[in-house]
């Protein structure tokens, strides 16, 4: 999990494979991030994500919503990540962007 500051937006990149072994770290990183910032989570460098990671994303998006802060996803291009996103309807529950700058722009502009 790589965290970068992009102005007032925190960009959280999930690098490599994420599953049961890393879901607690992902969950904690996202919880900490949404407490203070608008957040973009990039899955562009993710090689795998499973249902436990989607659960962490969902919890963070829910927490962000309650705090009135945006959390958006940069979906990226890895076919296996796109596959689970499509199967589960991820794009219906969290705003998703194919382009990183568009995702950061959306996080910045959101009320």
């Amino acid at each position, binding site marked *: 999990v790589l965290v970068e500051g992009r102005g007032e937006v925190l960009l959280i990149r999930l690098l490599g494979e994420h599953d*049961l072994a890393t879901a607690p770290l992902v969950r904690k990183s996202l919880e900490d991030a949404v407490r203070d910032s608008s957040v973009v989570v990039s899955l562009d460098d993710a090689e795998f994500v*499973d*249902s436990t990671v989607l659960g962490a994303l969902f919890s963070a998006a829910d927490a962000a919503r309650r705090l009135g802060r945006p959390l958006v996803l940069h979906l990226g291009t890895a*076919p*296996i990540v796109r*596959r689970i996103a499509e*199967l*589960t309807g991820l794009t219906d529950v969290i705003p998703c962007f194919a382009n990183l700058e568009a995702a950061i722009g959306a996080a910045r502009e959101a009320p």
Partner: protein
Amino acid sequence: VSDAQLEPFHTDFQTTRHAPAEARHALERYARTIEPSLLDDLKLVTSELVTNSVLHSGRPDKSIRLDLTLSDGVLKIEVVDCGKGCDVLVPRSTWPPSGLAVVSRIADRWSYQKSHSFHVRCEFDVGTDRLIHRESQTW
């Protein structure tokens, strides 16, 4: 190519949080000639099933077994743990999705069986063209 076959594949994993990744990596090594999109689906399903075994078997002292077989165009994945399983196993369709919800949307059929151990099986109807990835044949 017409005699495209996959040898049966069996392996065991310790019941730890690293078992899902170990199972995916074992699949990648075993099934390197499989069409990439089918391999992705097998990895997603296997990872979720092994994850469920790690989370719910309640037997960290016992290993988890993964079996993969191909017969008559049907690829079967079976994950076996030494737990009692659940009374009723139903894919949760609301968010966040359960592992079994992911499995049920990918596999053509799935089932589970309780005895002294807990078995979850998935079947994929595959043609031989999906088992041999064209680009791999030059290797």
